[in-house]
């Protein structure tokens, strides 16, 4: 016998404890409550240790001031909000550029990832072996390191590489034009690195799509393209939203692509700036305040986006 605990206490008493009498039931309920707390404890501790405390440390650091007469890298606690103003005044450009590049990379990854997902999920339906093989191919780039994949683009887009030579030959690129050390190279690398994050969630939602709904679209006078626009695409939106979030958020904070494929003037992303401030210049407050701004901006953008696409239940 199990006894459902009375009142607001959550949980079910363990078997064998359901003795008659409210006293025993209260004890059972309390014991169940204690078990619930016990189960939540490791997760809570983990979050406190590795999320709550670091975030507070970050917030605190962002307000520090240099120790007067101290060494480089020596700071003391303060509430110096001015740090944010200077950081934003100095670095609003890389910050804005990060979101711009992330947006381009997200659009690129969507343009590449959606057809891949559609091909595997819809065209490959009923052929699980083929689907499995294609999925492995989508994930295969992850078997090599992020850095290696990024460096590979350096080779592909090099001045004497086939791509640039072909573009020269086609007069798409002026004779002195190049692709390495440009925004283009950075965005291409970002796009490439995040395509699987885009394709997999979209694949998952297309895979769940009932093919009979597509047939119903055809039966109700919608041609293939209209059916895609009015049935398939709306029903795969949860996948598109997850995919764009999984791409946009890390891409906005990325610094590997920009450091390896960019130049020093017009491709710097905020991740690079934070990296330089923190590790090279030991300017912890500026690095921290930029991190906070990045986090807050992403949170706001994601919130607006999710609200707009009506997929709050994803969060």
């Amino acid at each position, binding site marked *: 016998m199990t006894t459902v605990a009375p009142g607001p206490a959550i949980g079910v008493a363990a078997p064998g404890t359901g003795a008659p009498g409210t006293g025993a039931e209260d004890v059972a309920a309390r014991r169940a409550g204690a078990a619930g707390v016990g189960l939540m404890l490791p997760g809570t501790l983990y979050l406190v240790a590795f999320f709550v405390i670091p975030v507070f440390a970050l917030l605190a650091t962002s307000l520090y001031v240099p120790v007067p007469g101290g060494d480089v890298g020596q700071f003391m606690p303060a509430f110096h909000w001015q740090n944010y103003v200077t950081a934003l005044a100095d670095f609003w450009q890389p910050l804005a550029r990060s979101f711009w590049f992330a947006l381009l990379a997200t659009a690129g990854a969507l343009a590449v990832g959606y057809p891949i997902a559609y091909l595997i999920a819809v065209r490959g339906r009923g052929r699980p072996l083929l689907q499995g093989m294609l999925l492995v191919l989508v994930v295969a780039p992850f078997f090599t390191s992020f850095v290696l994949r990024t460096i590979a683009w350096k080779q592909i887009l090099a001045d004497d590489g086939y791509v640039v030579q072909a573009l020269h030959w086609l007069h798409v690129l002026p004779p002195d034009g190049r692709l390495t050390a440009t925004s283009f190279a950075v965005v291409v690398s970002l796009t490439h690195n995040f395509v699987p994050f885009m394709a997999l969630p979209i694949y998952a939602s297309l895979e769940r799509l*009932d093919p*009979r*709904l597509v*047939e*119903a*679209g*055809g*039966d*109700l*006078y*919608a*041609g293939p393209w*209209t*059916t895609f626009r*009015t*049935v398939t695409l*709306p*029903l795969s939106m949860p996948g598109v939203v997850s995919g764009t979030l999984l791409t946009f958020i890390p891409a906005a904070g990325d610094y590997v692509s920009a450091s390896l494929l960019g130049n020093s003037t017009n491709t710097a992303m905020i991740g690079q700036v934070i990296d330089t401030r923190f590790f090279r210049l030991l300017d912890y407050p500026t690095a921290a305040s930029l991190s906070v701004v990045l986090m807050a901006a992403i949170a706001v953008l994601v919130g607006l986006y999710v609200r707009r696409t009506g997929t709050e239940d994803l969060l």
Partner: protein
Amino acid sequence: MRSPHTASLELWGVRKEFGSFTAVESLDLTVPEGSFFALLGPSGCGKTTTLRMVAGLEQPTSGVISIGGRDVTGTAAHRRPVNTVFQSYALFPHLTVLDNVAFGLKRKRVPDARAKARAGLETVQLAHLGDRRPNQLSGGQQQRVALARALVNSPSVLLLDEPLGALDLALRREMQLELKRIQADAGITFVHVTHDQEEAMTMADTVAVMNEGRVEQLGPPAELYELPSTAFVANFLGRSNLVTGSVVDVGEVLGVDVAGTRLRVPVGRVSAGSTGVGAVVQLGVRPEKVRIVANGSEPTSGSNVLGPGKVTDVSFTGVSTQYQVDLGDLGVHEVFAQNSSGAPEVRVGDAVRLAWDVDHTFGLAGEPARSGQ
């Protein structure tokens, strides 16, 4: 309002193979414009496949499909003047009920699509639920939305794939009448697929009985019931008592020897096949046409009589009593007797004979194993 678009549907030698499996074999069907046509058959006999070929969702392996005299065999689904009520409803989960119903109208760029959709919802009495999502409706309501979604487009032919399968008996009965009324009002050609013989017989003008990818028999329900032409139809559409014998007398009325007993059948009630002397035929009769002749009484002259046999079961079902009578080598026969006055008192274990009018006998060609092969 009668649909101005209604049209006839014709299938000429339509076949469908899935790999080496033939789901539909060389089907010839003519469904007159404005009629209520039922496709009846057991599970897996190819009913859905046939409908899907008409809707354009499946391409026939061979054959021609025409709607209103126009060959549509190669026409894409969205260009056919046909709508389907799917076996699984297939309502769009991301659209409201109203938008589901308006979907086809919007694609056809009909002006006032939403107003017309609302009117369509009214005909199925769901106008008050237009703003809900399909998953917030009961099964019966979803089914009615699916019906409205197809009907508002006033198609030339409406295909219904077991649309009442998910409903309880009372609602099902109500929807059968409702569908019949809608069909009569709109005058649209309905092709209604079902495996419920009672549903097919009460609703349709014409019933086609399908089995293993073939149409076994086609005709008005009463004709199919009175004069089945194959053993499959005789047993799928109601029940039948069947015996096998060989023809010994020819003429207006055939004489057939069945295990030593002489039975008679009007030659016009024997379907196809050879009816010459020596031909093997199956004779059948519906259980409600059979009378029980108790020991001691005599059957009326001019009847077919079998027996004696032993009553093995008596079940009272309210309006009638059903008897099982074991005739030995001729198998167990059924008798349904109305519970009106004057019925003989018969108990399990009694020895009785079975009698029925010669004119109620029907004959099927061939061996009992399977006719028509």
